[in-house]
């Protein structure tokens, strides 16, 4: 059994869900691993580690990004938001409520990625049509739902937001 010295590490600061965290990590550590295993924000999931499935989608300065394709160090200075930021005071957000009402999740593994994808997209395009929403939903993979109820949930949430404003 060998116990050799750790590899080179660097100190970085990440701004996640409005809190700043200092991390001492290897330069090769991905953002998703830093979020999940160093900050214990395990709501963001890992489905493929090559940027296709989108289970690891988080918001980086408001835009959806694949946290498996970024090194944590690349996210320094950016504002990162994860699924843990959506509910407030124990109340589900309107988007989360729409997902449960429409049965937009089954096993729930891909769900945080779809929520953050939708959160970022609707902030940028509140007037999105259902077809535009379907187009965006096609960025991520879900194996349980067949996507229809995910599209409907996001479309319903968008419609309600438009009604309120």
């Amino acid at each position, binding site marked *: *059994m060998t116990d050799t010295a750790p590899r080179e590490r660097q100190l970085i600061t990440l701004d996640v869900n409005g809190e700043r965290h200092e991390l001492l990590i290897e330069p090769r550590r991905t953002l998703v691993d830093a979020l999940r295993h160093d900050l214990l924000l395990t709501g963001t*999931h*890992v489905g493929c580690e090559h940027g296709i499935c989108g289970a690891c989608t988080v918001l980086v300065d408001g835009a959806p990004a694949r946290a498996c394709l970024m090194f944590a160090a690349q996210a320094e200075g950016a504002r990162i938001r994860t*699924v843990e930021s959506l509910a407030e005071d124990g*109340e589900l957000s309107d988007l989360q409520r729409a997902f449960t009402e429409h049965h937009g999740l089954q096993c729930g593994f891909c769900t945080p990625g779809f929520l953050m994808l939708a959160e970022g997209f609707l902030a940028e395009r509140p007037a999105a049509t259902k077809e535009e929403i379907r187009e965006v939903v096609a960025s991520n993979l879900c194996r349980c739902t067949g996507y229809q109820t995910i599209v409907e949930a996001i479309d319903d949430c968008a419609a309600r937001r438009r009604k309120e404003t």
Partner: protein
Amino acid sequence: MNDTTAAHQRATGHGRPTTPGGAWIGASVGRREDPRLLTGRGRFTDDIQLPGMLHAQFVRATVAHATVTGIDLSAVLDVPGVVAAFTAEDLELGDITARLGRPASEFVATAMPVLARDRVRFVGEPLAVVVARDAYAAEDGLEAAKVSYEPRPPVVSAARALAPGAPLVHDEAPLNTLLDVSMFATEGIDAVFDGAPHVVRVRASTGRQNALPLETRGAVASWDAREDQLLLQTCTQVPHQVRTVAARCLRLDERAVRVVVPDMGGGFGLKCVVGREEIAVAAAALRLDRPVKWIEDRKDALTASFLAREQHYDARAAFDADGRILALDADVVCDMGAYSCYPFTAGIEPLMASAEMPGVYKVPAYRVRGRAVTTNKAPTAPYRGVSRPQYVMVMERLFERAARELGMDPVEIRRRNVITDFPYTGVNRITYDPGSYRESLDLCERLVREEGWYAAREEAAAEGRHLGIGYACFSERTGYGSAAFAQRKMEVVPGFDISEVRMDTSGAVVVTTGTMSHGQSHETTMAQIVADELGLDIAKVRIHQGDTDRVTYGWGTFASRSIAVGGSAVRLAAAKLGEKLCRIAAARWELSPDAVELVTGGIRRRDGTGEVVGFPELADIAYLKAHLLPKDVEPGLSATATFDVFNDGTFSNATHGVVVELHPGTGQVEILAYLCVEDCGVAINPQVVEGQCRGGIAQGIAGALFEQVTYDDQGEPSATSFMDYKVPTAHEIPDVLIRHLQTPCAFTETGAKGAGEGGTIGAPAAVLNAVNDALRPTGTELDTTPITPETVQRAFGRTVEHPS
């Protein structure tokens, strides 16, 4: 009620019965799983962190078939962060061997070592486990491993496997055949074929697929010195079966192994067999006395886990002049890859196909030969639908071909042949309980017509476009009890389920089930059953599953058994507890037990006084004032019940209708409409049932049009990432219109039948038939899936730019 659930229900107004009388069963109750999964508070296997935890990855075979001449791990140990590396020899593990109680002429048992020793049989087979301080270092360690091989010729196709003189994958299995059964062989069947006015033949193949749960496999193993017990947290559909294999391989009593299943990101069958890696990780944790985590990466999930569905059919059907089927003769060869899975064995696919192929049709004469062949490819496990997507596709092709030959309407020929009088005992000696085969077919056709698709097809044809309409009419055996599984002659016979319902002094209940939800919503649907039986609010009911210390025993979740079998056990246990509550209440009033009844929240006198005693008060007596109990009532409030099915099970059914447009230039198959008329008996939660339909249909479409695991001629897998294994997205999967019929099951406790697999079963046949309908002007008929763009282009006589 916890806060998130309360907030969820307040906010959504979704979570109450909507049916008259307030019954929970039949209401689309909001899922109790959702609040934690939506807020990132689920706990999946990779979310587990234990103090001192190490990380494992596997050294895997890089050749498909070879003798292993050496494994040198010395350089691995020099890699920074690596703590240990073990081969099979180091860990001294027993083999995993799945068996059938069949003669050697029918079945050959083969051992699957936990780690390969002197022989590897597929690219990706685990040879050694590397354990390191973090997952990155474990990956580094793999690169330093040196394995030397003496290559053997690989067997990469079923045809090659069965060819005379082919190299043997397992020396004990001649002709690479693990199972070979010939069944039924109705007397005089050859004469029927000889004398029939019409005989049609379909030779079909279906592509190898990955069930592809989005969460890959994984496990965290740790030794609990205080409990003197191994804790194996693993994402499995069958926790008790994993416990059995782990205990045997590690030479422990079963009580010294506790298998706990965290939240699971799907399974679809891939996780209903025991994996080698979860056992190896447990062994490494014991050896090192440190917690060890293994999370499979996507490449390994695509190439080295369990696959399914690669089948080849040569089928003939005889018809009379009116389109009535006279006989069916089929030869089924399933390419099961390198190993037999535990506990089902490599017989799972051919035995399912052979036993059930006649399906919804009145087939008077039947003969089938089913074979499982072994090849140098990743092994197979049951995958949602197990063989039914394939044999239903072949049956539906036979009927479509016959309809063409007879000049009949394809729906009409089915109408003349579907079973309409129930119970019906088929030529395959299976008794089908009542269903709505004919009704679902008629309704589906009517919906397609009402939605204007027949008119649209005509208009399109006039414009030179290619629209096609296709159907699949099928049933699906669910709720297999031990009697039905015993007929397969499995050495390990699944079937029954056990449930315990326990009420605490606050009147809340915890319920155990031996089934294992991995997306199917059991925490909601099982609670609905108990809430109705005991007159409780669903917020007072908590479901426990996936813990071998908490749950007496269970067979997990597969074969659409959970609600039919597990839900029945849950209802019986709740009813037993209800009886006990009645006895305690009756004694309190000095009445006989039949003078009281269960009502919402308590027990009421039947004498018209309307007096009710609430559950908390009765629980107070049962636990805290036991001296008040009648002599024949034991203290405490728990009840256990088992449920099994002693007949052939219960059949759900459906008809799917699909409209496609083919684009000759690109070869694209565009699905314009998808309709599903389904009957799963009583739907405990219709929204959940619809979710199962839609998700199943998406996986069926994936198999029909997109997904295929392929290998080169040396057995090297060619789809190792999502770049090559094409999983459909929201672009490709259409919206599905669902209509429900309801033929309650007479022998499950709720009238429910299974609902988990039907969508997947019908989709390939319906899509393929629709494509063939659209191809009608070309004269080409396709019988093989996936239907690639190249196939469609060729059918239209177009030049294919990138020949496959």
